[in-house]
């Protein structure tokens, strides 16, 4: 049974992640505890969710720079609404997801109708969402609601005191949903087709407009979910939160083996991309000796190392095949 070459980047990602984990474990035996594993899921939940949306966008050959701001907006929106009105959080969630999905859809619409590059439209979207959260409040607003306490404390204590939290599970679910949407639906096929080339996709019968709107709506929806998760994670809304998260998400997607030019990749790879980013973070914290500037440099070096390894591995297997 030969392995399909399109799987190579995914396998390389998973392989390198496991190898990296082993290296960390040798250096800090405690890394293998369920606590660290649980933390890895929980701490990166919001990133994983938003990266799933980003994966679809990138698969279609686009990019969504607005997600970081949308997460911040979501937190502020929830916090302010809960503070100002007596609405139940679930109602607020529904409202929020409506808003972010519509926001994404609107960006998709602008991209399609005006034929403008996604980079710029979503950049404007990024300004807009961040600006909108400023207009809601410039303060950081705590969320105090019994339902939120419930959500925060929803976890399953794994053996070894590690916590598998609700939001970690939400992330895993999102990855599963994203994978099904991308790889098992006609919409997903259209996304890949767009990534292969818009003109060709059009000639093959893809409804380019509807698909584009759908993609960015999906990304907006995921950013909304991520915002909810983030608000549970921090228990507050803060307009300055998650600055630059879009770039982290893009990096995670690319590390996960998805081509930035679109048309090739796996949602599952994104999960490992996110976990890898988290692993790098954890490793640096465990080490604890790096100064602020070395932290930045080392993150960059590890990122580069990872990408080079991945490329090398893919190339080596491709040649042998």
């Amino acid at each position, binding site marked *: 049974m030969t392995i399909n070459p399109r799987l190579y980047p995914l396998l390389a990602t998973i392989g390198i992640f496991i190898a990296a984990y082993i290296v960390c474990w040798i250096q800090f035996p405690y890394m293998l505890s369920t*606590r660290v594993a649980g933390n890895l899921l929980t701490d990166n939940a919001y990133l994983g969710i938003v990266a799933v949306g980003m994966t679809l966008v990138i698969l279609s050959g686009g990019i969504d720079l607005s997600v970081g701001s949308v997460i911040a907006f979501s937190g502020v929106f929830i916090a302010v609404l809960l503070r100002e009105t007596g609405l139940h959080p679930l109602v607020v969630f529904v409202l929020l997801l409506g808003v972010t999905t519509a926001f994404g859809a609107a960006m998709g619409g602008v991209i399609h109708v005006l034929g403008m590059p996604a980079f710029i439209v979503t950049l404007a979207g990024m300004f807009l969402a961040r600006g909108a959260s*400023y207009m809601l409040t410039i303060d950081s*607003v705590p969320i105090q609601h019994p339902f939120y306490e419930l959500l925060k404390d929803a976890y399953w204590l794994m053996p070894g005191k590690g916590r598998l939290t609700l939001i970690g599970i939400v992330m895993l679910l999102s990855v599963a949903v994203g994978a099904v949407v991308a790889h098992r639906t006609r919409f997903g096929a259209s996304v890949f087709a767009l990534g292969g080339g818009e003109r060709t996709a059009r000639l093959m019968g893809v409804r380019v407009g509807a698909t584009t709107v759908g993609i960015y709506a999906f990304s907006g929806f995921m950013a909304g979910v991520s915002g909810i998760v983030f608000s549970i994670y921090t*228990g507050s*809304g*803060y307009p300055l*939160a998650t600055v630059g998260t879009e770039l982290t998400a893009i990096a995670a997607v690319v590390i996960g083996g998805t081509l930035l030019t679109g048309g090739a990749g796996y949602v599952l790879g994104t999960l490992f991309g996110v976990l890898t980013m988290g692993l790098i973070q954890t490793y640096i914290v465990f080490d*604890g*000796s790096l100064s602020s500037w070395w932290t930045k440099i080392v993150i960059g070096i590890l990122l580069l190392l990872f990408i080079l390894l991945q490329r090398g591995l893919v190339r080596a297997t491709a040649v042998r095949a």
Partner: protein
Amino acid sequence: QTVGFSQIGSESGWRAAETTLTRQQAEERGIDLRFSDAQQRQENQIAAIRSFVAQGVDAILLAPVVATGWDSVLEEAQEAEIPVVLLDRQVDSSEDLYLTAVGSDLVHEGEVAGQWLADTVGDQECRIVELQGTTGSSPAIDRATGFRNAIEGMDNLEIVRSQTGDFTRTGGKEVMESFLQAESGNEICALYAHNDDMALGAIQAITEAGMDPGEDILIVSIDAVPDIFQAMANGDANATVELTPNMAGPAFDALEAYWSDGTEPEKFIQTESTLYTQDDDPMAEYEARKDLGY
């Protein structure tokens, strides 16, 4: 003892100094300091604290990037019986979730600055421009509030323009230039900057516009970084309110007491917000600070 320190980032010279001093203090006391730089992001700080908890450190120092959103991670630390000390900024979580907080009162800083200005101008008319910190950050909000508290009710003092300079020199300079255009310079009587860096940028803008900072326009700011003392020595700046970067000293003192016999310190160890003016021998202050890693 091992102590984890979750620092916000390295966005300003002041913070770099705080990091340096914390390391120094730890070294002097033989404490093994695990340092983590969060690059201005709360999510990184939360993740770092959880990693510290997972590693089982003996205490955690936290310089929170924002006041809200720490409840669950502090609870987690508490469950693991790891004391947490907050540095230089407050959180709005319940007090029993942390051991103590070391810091200054940001609102108070603004009040000191405002009070100085009010005292200085007396009952002259004074049109004030304000350089705010990063929109939405707690120092920006609190220092604005404090200043307004101090000048409240004084009809001769009026804040005519207020814009964010993002706590940076470039921002301070650029915004000050536009203030000078918009208010045609000589009508501005004083500048209140949320930090010294912006004030230093603004001083350049004022000089380049052909005016004399410190004379034509009074300048008061907060932080007391070395460079502002130099400006004060030159007569370019008038006053600054100190925010000491040595938060770790008192924090370690409290921790050591707690470790040795479980003494619970007070919930808030306030550092002083000393006001420095041109009369306080700024050059000496400059010399004293310039090697602290600002």
